[in-house]
């Protein structure tokens, strides 16, 4: 299936002509997530005429602009609701949403919750950079305790939102979190999420050196990426340590962000159930008509 071999070939195939250069700062993680998504799409070999993207507002939400496919760049927080309509118009479409932590977990939280609950057939790729990047570094709902933002100048005192926990609780079919610092697992995971019927969420931990890294003294981009390695732990390892580890080991990992696939189930998606509903109505009506004859 894989036709392209190099990143250059990949970009030539998937990038929208005429939109270069991007708005992204040096070291921004959004481009990396886009690249991983392209690899996943390439491996899947999907028809890009039938694959479409929606996004809200934010740096991360600019991604559909760079993809050679239909893209709906909507209003802040509302992409998932727009995407629900796109999918309803033709459930054969592949619908992918790019969103940010502010867009998805902040202003758009309610749309996220209900699309996950309805198990709407779409893949949401939320890029969590712990900050409102586009608007210059205001506090995000995912910001770690103590982190600095322009609107939390003395350190954040709000507990951060774990969007994967939320999606899991809502029964989303596929839920995973990865840092951008490793390519292979994320690409495989995006592929799994995309292929999933029903709702899938992929959260990416990605750097915003401009608005978050600088203010929170995460250092250059190499150090920034190392931060993810030092502060995340695979869910399988975490569970093992919590079950069998020593007190010291437990203490070491207890505040790390868990990464990996948190949920992978097969609940019927919304549109499968809607089809069944329409079918049932047809049968009932035919029966009624027969009865009248």
């Amino acid at each position: 299936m894989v036709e392209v071999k190099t990143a250059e070939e990949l970009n030539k195939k998937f990038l929208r002509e005429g939109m270069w250069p991007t708005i992204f700062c040096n070291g921004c993680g959004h481009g990396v997530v886009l690249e991983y998504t392209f690899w996943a799409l390439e491996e899947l070999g999907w028809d890009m005429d039938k694959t479409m993207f929606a996004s809200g507002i934010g740096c991360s939400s600019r991604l559909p602009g760079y993809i050679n496919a239909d893209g709906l760049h909507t209003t802040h927080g509302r992409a998932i609701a727009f995407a629900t309509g796109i999918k309803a118009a033709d459930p054969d479409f592949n619908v992918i949403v790019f969103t940010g932590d502010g867009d998805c977990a902040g202003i758009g939280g309610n749309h996220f919750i209900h699309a996950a609950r309805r198990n709407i057939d779409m893949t949401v790729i939320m890029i969590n950079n712990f900050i409102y990047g586009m608007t210059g570094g205001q506090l995000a709902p995912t910001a770690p305790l103590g982190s600095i933002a322009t609107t939390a100048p003395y350190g954040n005192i709000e507990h951060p939102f774990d969007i994967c926990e939320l999606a899991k609780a809502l029964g989303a079919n596929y839920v995973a979190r990865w840092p951008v610092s490793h390519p292979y697992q994320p690409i495989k995971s995006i592929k799994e999420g995309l292929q999933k019927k029903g709702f899938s969420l992929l959260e990416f931990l990605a750097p915003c050196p401009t608005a978050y890294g600088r203010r929170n003294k995460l250092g250059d981009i190499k150090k920034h990426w190392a931060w993810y390695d030092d502060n995340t732990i695979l869910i399988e390892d975490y569970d093992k340590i919590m079950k069998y580890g020593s007190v010291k080991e437990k203490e070491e990992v207890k505040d790390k962000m868990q990464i990996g696939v948190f949920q992978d189930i097969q609940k019927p998606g919304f549109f499968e159930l809607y089809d069944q509903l329409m079918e049932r109505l047809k049968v009932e009506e035919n029966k009624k008509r027969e009865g009248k004859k």
Partner: protein
Amino acid sequence: MKYKRDPKRIRQVLGKKVQFILGDMACVYGGLLAGCSFFGGYPITPASEVAEGMARRLPRVGGTYIQMEDEIGSIAAVIGAAWGGAKSMTATSGPGFSLMMENYGFAAMTETPCVIVNVQRTGPSTGQPTLGAQGDMMQARWGTHGDFEAIAFAPSTVQECMDFTIEAFNLSEKYRNPALVMTDGEVGHLRERIIIPEEKDLKLIDRVEATIDKKKFIPFTNSQTRKNCKVPDFPTFGTGYRTYVTGLTHNEKGFPATDKQPDHERLVKRITEKIIDDADKLVSVEKFNLDDAEIAFVTYGASARPTESAMEMGRKNGIKVGMLRLKIVWPVPEKEVHKLAKQVDKIIVPEMNLGQMVHPIREAANGNCEVICAPKIGGEIHYPDEVYKYLEAK
């Protein structure tokens, strides 16, 4: 699978040709007849019956009903569905209409055809949930930020709820602009006889879809297939045009051009002019006794009903009074009103608010006659004698 309008099926689901139904339900019928295949809704009095009617019927005609999490989501899904190729609508009332304002502007900016029914109730805020008003007339025109044009109908009867919903779809498709049915709790909850038009008498307009060579297609410019048409052809998602649609100021290709004054001016002028240029074609009024009138009522929606009675009382008493009823309220029929203002001494505008449409009407009259408001608020329609009083006032 994509929806395909099936007239026979729609008529089976709607039932008898002549029915006695609610105004809200007539909006459902109008939507289904027009080929609406997606409804995103959120319950709110006095508009819930529209959502309920759609929830019952859409799955039976092959369309999709989704009760969204709020009105912001409803209008968002409606716009998304439109890009996916559906004719789509939602219905709400004041509080929900307020929530929709940001995406209403998004629909205008991205030239998305869609229909919003607003069964108006009194405000501000939660107001009188079950009672009618016409308090959102200006919000319909100016409620979202920035420059845009509104297209809005105001039904006075249940039959018009159906007819105008069909017409709203037609104009939204034709101009690629959101179109509104600004009804109210009075007409929405009124039960009257309606006649469902035969298929052959239905005039439906569908958006002109992009068909030209994909390499030559320019998504946000004058139509490339119709002469002198400022409405671009519609590149339905999934048809291979791979269009980028953004609410940011965009150039003709659809690419963001946020720091470019000429791009913004070109875009916003085109999306407003496509409607303003056709303003004369968009006039839809009903005239009563205007030939020799010295006083004229200019009114719309539910208010036209008691006003018609007041006019008849006036005529019986020898007052030369007539009435101009606006069926399309936005754009305001400026020339009609201007002509009328030159003829009469006074224009009286009865409406269920403290004075909204009276302002553009006064502007259209342009000082040629006195223009006064005959307001009524509190969730009640005017009594005819309340309107009549304005005829005798000096």
